[in-house]
């Protein structure tokens, strides 16, 4: 049975975030209609015109097409990295939070803290350094650098999601309804993954949006440094890197336009994340006409296994 919640009402910042993300997606989609991003369509760099709304780059390729390719590539890498981090981190966090203070909890949290010892960007660079930038071949399967960047960024985010999931799980496990479900004879696995998890998702999703913003930034930085996707494939980062040298010749469009798209992405996800995350844990509003007892903060009516000596009813 699918859980139903009313969608959160975004404030002004939230709407700006939505608009930014939509613009980003617009460029990414519309730009693909411009044709092949690797095709040489002009003899050299040209300013924006009707035929080439973003102008052309230093080799004469349409910049809108390349920006679109870059925006999509960056988006895919970031989505898959966040997806990977959630798939790995959330179950880890839920299992750790299930028995707060238990052995698994301690083990997992120590591992997570070790991962977090390095600043995330340094950690990702370290991983990429280990794996190298050349394509890796595992039999018939070729793993290109894009996938490895996604994996490295994702691995860097596993601690964040594990912590969020764990914190949310710890809180949920102490709620009355969990004890009630146990009393009803619902198996532990179902309680954890069908009931508690439903309440863990909203904070995780909020973090996911914020993490998305950081991932876009990180991927841009890595590509800028040449550690990301290799040419001729574009990502926003390596477009901006190539563009740096052109500004002095007066070719302003080359760095500014892809750079703006990058900023839109980061800003948009950042603002969206604030909105989604801020609404986690909120209950649905009552339907009009239904009288509601003044809400009470649910107090634990069943004591925890090591109770306060004063309250042992």
């Amino acid at each position, binding site marked *: 049975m699918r*859980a139903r919640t009313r969608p959160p009402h975004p404030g002004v910042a939230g709407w700006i975030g939505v608009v930014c993300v939509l613009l980003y997606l617009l460029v990414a989609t519309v730009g693909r209609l411009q044709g092949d991003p690797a095709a040489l369509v002009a003899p050299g760099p040209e300013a924006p015109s009707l035929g080439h709304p973003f102008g052309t780059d230093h080799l004469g390729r349409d910049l809108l097409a390349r920006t679109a390719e870059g925006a999509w590539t960056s988006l895919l890498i970031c989505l898959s990295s966040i997806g990977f981090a959630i798939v790995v981190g959330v179950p880890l966090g839920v299992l750790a939070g299930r028995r707060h203070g238990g052995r698994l909890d301690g083990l997992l949290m120590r591992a997570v803290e070790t991962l977090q010892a390095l600043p995330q960007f340094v950690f990702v660079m370290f991983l990429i350094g280990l794996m190298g930038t050349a394509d890796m071949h595992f039999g018939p399967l070729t793993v290109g650098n894009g996938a490895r960047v996604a994996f490295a960024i994702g691995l860097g985010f596993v601690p964040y999601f594990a912590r969020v999931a764990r914190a949310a799980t710890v809180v949920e496990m102490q709620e*009355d309804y969990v004890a009630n479900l146990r009393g*009803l004879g619902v198996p532990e696995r179902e309680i954890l993954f069908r009931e508690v998890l439903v309440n863990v998702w909203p904070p995780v999703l909020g973090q996911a949006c914020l993490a998305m913003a950081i991932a876009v930034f990180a991927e841009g930085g890595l590509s800028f440094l040449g550690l990301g996707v290799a040419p001729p494939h574009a990502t926003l980062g390596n477009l901006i890197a190539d563009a740096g040298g052109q500004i002095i010749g007066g070719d302003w469009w080359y760095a500014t336009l892809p750079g703006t798209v990058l900023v839109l992405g980061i800003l948009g996800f950042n603002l969206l994340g604030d909105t989604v995350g801020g609404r986690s844990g909120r209950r649905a509003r009552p*339907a009009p006409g239904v009288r509601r*007892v003044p809400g*009470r903060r649910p107090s634990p009516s069943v004591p925890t296994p*090591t109770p306060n*000596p004063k*309250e042992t*009813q």
Partner: protein
Amino acid sequence: MSALLDVRGLTRRFTLPRPFGRRTAPRVVHAVEDVSFEVAAGEVLAVVGESGCGKTTVARVLAGLDTATSGTVALAGRELTGGRTPADQRLIQLVTQNPRAAFNRRRTLRHALDQPLRVHGLGAGRAERDALVAEMVERVGLSTEHLDRLPGELSGGELARLVLARALLVRPRVLVLDEPTASLDASVKATVVDLLLRLRAESDLAIVVITHEIDIARRLADRAAVMYLGRVVELGPAASVLARPRHPYPRLLLASVPVPDPERIGPASAADFGAGAIGEVPSALDPPSGCAFHPRCALATEVCAERRPAREVLDDVEVACHHPG
């Protein structure tokens, strides 16, 4: 009539974690000590007492949410051990104090009610389970339109009834209700009490109602037990125990219940509460010696401080007191 639920010598002690590094004696909380009672099918037992007397712990142990340190819980002659199978788990259901917190706030009531049926395989398919749920919902006095809502959209009274419905759906033999009316408005209390009375009449469940509201207990219960600091001090028919108790403690409790008197207007005074000051319940960590009530008891003598009173039968009740009235 043989008892459906038979509790013998139930004891639950908690060992508190010692402060780190200090070599002190382990501190033990005697939450429940040597509690015994019986409940027959179709009978309501009220367990009464103030906070800290161990009632909720008894409820949790009965429902399998906690394991007794010693003692037994037997259902229809069969002992239920600490680690219960799901089938056994169904047999004694606990309805907790706060109905709103008893449901997952992000799941519809329909899901919440369908879930226990599905988990225990009651009802062949979706359609049949839906029918069972609908029937139960109507039995508690609500309609199926309530089912597609989230808990936050319903009132406390409605939720209280749905908690009951959910507990009943798994076909328990014993129903334990922990403060079923404590968080409800006066008018809603009445509907819940009526519902419970109907249950008692229509089914052959053994019902244990834990409450500190004496008047509710009087309305619902056939028999009553009074607990103090983890022990049962008096047990017997509700008409006796809740009207003319022998043990000083329930006498104190009853005397402190204000009786509504339309003739009297103006501020209340201590004299209205009779029987002198009530005092505080001592800590369960360090209970008084002998009879646990003796520091607050008007009838206490030396023997009360030395020896714990054994349970004796006096007319139709059991009392644990050196000087029962």
